Every structure is written in C-alpha cells, then in structure tokens.
C-alpha cells in the first residue's frame, strides 16, 4: 500500500511536466503577444520590446519551458502579468469564495442525488421512478446560462429572496450570496447525478447476492441500504471524489454572473488577457489536485471494499 502511494505520488512528475508542456505550447507559442496588451493603447515599440525582454519572452523556447517546469515544482508562480499581483496570494484569496460556493452545493447535490436515486431504485419501473427521472432529465436539458439569467431575474430581483450579486467573505454572511448560485448548481447537477447513481444501484440490484439476501427474507429497504448501497459505493466514490479537484476552480459562469470573486473569475480573466503565469498556475494546481484525489479514490476503494488490494 505504501509502495503504491509513493508510486502514484511520483506519477505527479510526468503529469505536471505534461500539463506544463500543453499549457506552454498553447499559450506561449501559439497565443497572442501579451506585451502590447499589457502596455495599453499608446504603447511604443520600444516599450513592447523592453517588456518582452523583462517577461522572458525573448528567451529561447526550451529556456522558457524550463522556467515553466521550475515554477511548477517550486510553486513559485511569481506575479500575474496583467494585475501584477502575487499569484499565490490571488489564489489564496480566490479559493475561499469559490469553495464556499462549490463545497456546500456539491455536498448537498450529492446527498440529495443519492437519496433520490435510492427512491427511484426502490420504485423502479413505477410512476414515481418515471416522474423523478423525467424531472432530472428535463432539468439537465436546459442550458445553465438560461437558468442563471432567469433565476437571477426572478428569484433575486422580482421576488427579492436572494442577493442579486456580490460576496461577503465572513461566515455566515456568505451564505446569502452563494445561496442562489448554489441552488442553480444543485439543479444542474441533480440530473446527471441521480441518473448515474440510479444506474449504479440498479447494476447491483440484479446481482445474485441481492437475490440471496431477499430470499433470506430481508425487507427491500434493508436490502437497498445494507447490501446494494454498500456495494455500489465504489463507483459512487469514484464519481464523487474525482469531481472535487474541479470544485477548487470554482464555477466559471456562476461566479461571473453573481459577482463572486473566486478562482473561476481569475481563470477567465487570465484567459482573456493572455496572462500566462496565472493560467499555468491554475492548470498545474488543478492537475496536482486531480492526481491527489484520484489517489484518494483508490485508497477509499480499499476502505469501501476490503477485497480490493492496491499493488
């Protein structure tokens, strides 16, 4: 097990190298020159040249890639080109609003989905199953942009139930700002989540051991909770945990529409202004989170199912 974990952690190295390479090629080699952009509408050619020099854009490409690699492993991302802010500081400040939005919303949507999935699995094939499934599918067939526009207009402005936009970092003040975007998040995730969990649960329901359990006279609810849910845990864990790294990046559209100052907005701004150091930092951090959480999934497997051995 320890060996396995070490091996997986070492795997971080090639992945971060790869991510650095992809991002570097896309944004440094192919995308626009950031220098004139940073200097504004009156930039002189001399300034453009000097700034390129200072940003290291005149160095040979392999040297530039080497800088990317170095900063990825030292976490010294430097300063944003566009805002001149310390990138680490930006991420620290931006992570909180993003997480206060995504984590409660993610937690609630997962819990509600599992409950609903159990309900529909219990009533499988009956009217209530069809009804909930239909609602879920219908819910996910509407564009997220449409939800945002309408909910903000109707619930926040017309009915005045929520703040229209903005953010307050203190607990519990932020709840009133993240509530509406959080609800939209939940509405958007219910569809895919319930469908997935239902499938997983149904996969188990037709297994032999379930039949045996039923034959032993266990009630359907007991069978569902004790046997089925437990055995369905592995796919559920995988599905849930692997989404977590992307929670950190926040929800791009929700943050932008509800003026939540999170990482989604930082990423979007960076992409819009060719702010390479920030893009790189976000990509590298998210890939590290991704690897760590997939490792966590593997470890949770062994907890959920002692038969699984990590080699």
């Amino acid at each position: 097990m320890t060996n396995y974990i070490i091996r997986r952690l070492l795997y971080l190295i090639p992945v971060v190298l790869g991510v650095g390479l992809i991002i570097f090629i896309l944004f440094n080699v192919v995308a626009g020159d950031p220098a004139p952009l940073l200097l504004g509408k009156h930039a002189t050619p001399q300034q453009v040249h000097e700034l390129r020099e200072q940003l290291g854009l005149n160095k040979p490409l392999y040297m530039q890639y080497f800088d990317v690699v170095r900063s990825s492993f030292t976490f010294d991302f430097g300063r944003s080109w566009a805002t001149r802010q310390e990138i680490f500081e930006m991420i620290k400040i931006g992570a909180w609003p993003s997480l206060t939005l995504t984590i409660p919303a993610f937690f609630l949507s997962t819990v509600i989905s599992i409950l609903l999935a159990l309900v529909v699995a219990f009533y499988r094939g009956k009217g209530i199953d069809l009804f909930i499934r239909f609602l879920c599918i219908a819910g996910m067939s509407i564009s997220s942009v449409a939800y945002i526009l309408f909910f903000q207009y109707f619930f926040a402005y017309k009915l005045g139930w929520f703040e229209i936009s903005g953010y307050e970092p203190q607990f519990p003040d932020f709840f009133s700002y993240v509530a509406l975007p959080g609800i939209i998040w939940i509405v958007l995730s219910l569809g895919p989540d319930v469908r997935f969990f239902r499938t997983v649960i149904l996969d188990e329901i037709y297994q032999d051991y379930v039949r045996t359990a039923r034959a032993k006279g266990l009630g359907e609810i007991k069978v569902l909770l004790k046997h089925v849910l437990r055995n369905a845990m592995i796919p559920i864990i995988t599905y849930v945990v692997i989404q977590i790294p992307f929670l950190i990046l926040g929800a791009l559209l929700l943050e932008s529409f509800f003026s939540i100052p999170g990482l989604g907005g930082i990423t979007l701004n960076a992409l819009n202004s060719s702010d390479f150091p920030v893009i790189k930092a976000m990509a590298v951090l998210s890939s590290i989170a991704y690897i760590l959480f997939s490792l966590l999934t593997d470890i949770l497997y062994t907890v959920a199912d002692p038969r699984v051995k990590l080699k």
Partner: protein
Amino acid sequence: MSSQDTRSLWADAFSRLVKDRWALISLLVVVTYALVALMATLGIGMPDWRSSLGIEYLAPSGEFWFGTDLFGRDVFAKVIHGTKIAMSVGLITSLIAIPIGVVIGALAGYFGGWVDDIISWFITTFSSIPNIMLLISITLIMGKGLLSVYLALGMTGWVGLARLIRGEVMKHKEREYVQAASALGGGHYRKLFVHILPNVTHLVIINTSLQFQTAIKSEVILSYLGLGVQGEPSWGTMIDDARMELARGVWWQLAGATLAMFIIVLAFNILGDALRDALDPKLKGK
C-alpha cells in the same frame, strides 16, 4: 459468445427499444430535428433568418411564433437555423471525438504495457487540465467560428470514452472467445477489431447520445464566452443576446432557444437511457 449470440442481442435490444414508447417518441424527435437541420442546410422550405422585418422586439404572435429580435428578424427562423448549427455541432464533434476515444482506448486496453503507460499518461494529463482552459485555448489557436467550435469540442470530448473502452477491452481480452481466436492464429488487429470491438459497440452508441447533447450545451457556453458561432444565429448566441434582453422584458429569444434545445437534449437523454437499458446485457430480463 458466438457471432450468432451477438446478433440476437442486437435484435433483442431493438425489439425492446421499440416497445418503449418514450424512446420511440424521442427517436422521432431526433429524426425530425435532423431533417429540419438537413433541410436548412440545403435551403429547402425553411424561413430566412436574414430578412429583417424592420420592427425590433415584437412579442410572439400568430405571425411570429417566437417574436422578433433586435434587428427585427424572426426569432423562429433563427431557432430553425440554430437547429442546423446545433445538430452539426453534435454530429461533427461526435465524429471527431468518438473515433479518437475508441482507437486510443482500445489500443491502451488491448496492448497494455508501455503502450498503455503512455496512453494512460496522456489521458491523465489531458483530463487533469480543466476542460474550459482547453476549449478556450483551442479556439484561440483555430480562430473563432464554427470550425473551431467543432474541433475544440471534438478534441476535448474523447477522454471519457477512451477510459471506458480501455477498461472494457481489458476485460474482453481475457475472455475465452478472444483466447480462442488467438489459438486459431488470429493477429492482433483481427482480434481487436473483428472480435473485441463489436462487443463494446453498445458503449459507443450510448456515449454518442451523451456526446451529442454535451456538445449542444457546450456551444451555448462557448457563445457566452464570446467564442461561439459567428455571423449566424445559434441557440448559444440567442441565449447570449438574452443576457441583456431579459431585464427589459424581452424573454422570447431566451425562451425560443431554450425550448428548442430542451426538446432535443431531452430526447437524446431519454434515448440514451433507453439504449443503455436495451443494450446492456446485465439488465436483461429485468
């Protein structure tokens, strides 16, 4: 599992699909949309979205079912044109993403070893970068427009399928029928493409319906980011227009595009579910 078994599995699946009323209706919806898209592409019998009626922001009426837009163009005509864009986005991105996913997944799963190591590394690297960054950067490189929407969505859409196929192929590789094929002297490619792949086709079909609707929804988000279709209406640009219209009470562009999208995505979802139920042998005899 002999080839005869496989055939009867498909026949069985088909008969079950047909029995499912909702799936049948959904299939009908998809076909209708495809026909509308085809006719719009060929320019047969479809209203012209370009012609301005001169009066901006007319509310829906008997004459203009979905009202008119800022330029006084018929929103219904725009919805129709949007259908063409949406269906083409779904189709072409699937055509790009699915072969990539199948080939990469199958190679990794079948050969294992260093091939698998490299492909797995690539898949992991690729999926650890947030999708939106890849989407934006590909459109940055390709320049804006429909073509880069196709490519961006196609080139990011294969990862899930590749993983799935890799896993399935790995399982099948150990099965008796493949062992038998190699005993009979079948080469790698014969084994992989003739024996194994037909047995994972159901995954591909289910995935296509998923890919289709994801692509349609992603087009809206790309349009919101200003990276979508240019110079012609799409559901995405219509919803994007609504960003500013809703507060002044113009709801019909949003409603028109959302409704059109809702119906087709819903149909794909139901169809996808039905296909899954029909094709997944595990659920047989439910």
